[in-house]
């Protein structure tokens, strides 16, 4: 009994993250649909404003959970978070909403998923990273996908 409980705990620990990944996958999938329903009803700017305020509860809950010290642990981290992951990502999201308002989500969402192509190119150019064989395949497949979508 205790052995099987031990196995269960162990497998829970081992696979718990997988469940979290799958929940994230499903939530983002539903998010795409909800965003399309939103941009069918309002413009992308209005949608973006509502979307941004909708993000707040999770952020505030996280802040409350970790406390002030963890939030301000790194000035560089704050700058990157606010600017690069906040303002810049918000600009990207506004473009996503504008694309959704103008086109079908079943084309827009897969097309946008090739964005790591840009990340990889920037990393090669600025960080002198090497492209792995898998990433090289990814470039070919992503570009072929975009060509078929356009």
């Amino acid at each position, binding site marked *: 009994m205790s052995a099987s409980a031990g196995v269960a705990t162990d497998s829970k620990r081992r696979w718990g993250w997988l469940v979290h990944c799958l929940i994230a996958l499903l939530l983002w999938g539903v998010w795409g649909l909800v965003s399309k329903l939103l941009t069918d009803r309002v413009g992308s700017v209005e949608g973006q*404003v509502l979307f941004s305020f909708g993000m707040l509860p999770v952020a505030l809950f996280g802040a409350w959970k970790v406390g002030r010290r963890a939030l301000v642990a790194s000035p560089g981290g704050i700058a990157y978070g606010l600017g690069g992951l906040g303002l810049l990502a918000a600009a990207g999201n506004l473009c996503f909403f504008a694309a959704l308002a103008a086109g079908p989500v079943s084309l827009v969402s897969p097309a946008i998923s090739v964005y790591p192509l840009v990340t990889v190119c920037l990393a090669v150019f600025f*960080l002198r990273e090497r492209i792995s064989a898998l990433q090289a395949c990814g470039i070919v497949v992503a570009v072929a996908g975009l060509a078929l979508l356009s």
Partner: protein
Amino acid sequence: MSWPAYTVAAILTWGTVGYVQKISANLLGPAAVVFWATIGYVVAALALLPYLPAHRPALTATVLILGLSSGLLNNIANWFLYSALHKGAPASIAIPLTALYPLVTVLLALTLLHESLSLRQGIGALLAVVGGVLLSYERPSGSDA
């Protein structure tokens, strides 16, 4: 502008965000990153307020619910991904796996919104997502595979 033009703009912007994420990884914990990124979103939203169109659709309960839940769903998903990484998920699996999410959106759009894709577009959608997944795979540090 047409949807492909906006899509290209989103790809360029989010691709750069991915790069920022890469160079700023581990400067702050996940909750702090989500917090500051959200504050960035809210600042951007406040800056957008003067640009709201004068003749805009009414803010109905449906619009309010859809708009707020769009942000809520996205940030809960962020939270689950970060929590998976915190629980020891290998980033080399977690990030490409969650990058499959547009396929969920496509399935929902085809079934619930009755959008339709030609065979060519369907193959294109699948390849684009798989390409994104392959591109988001990062070698685990210390491995040369």
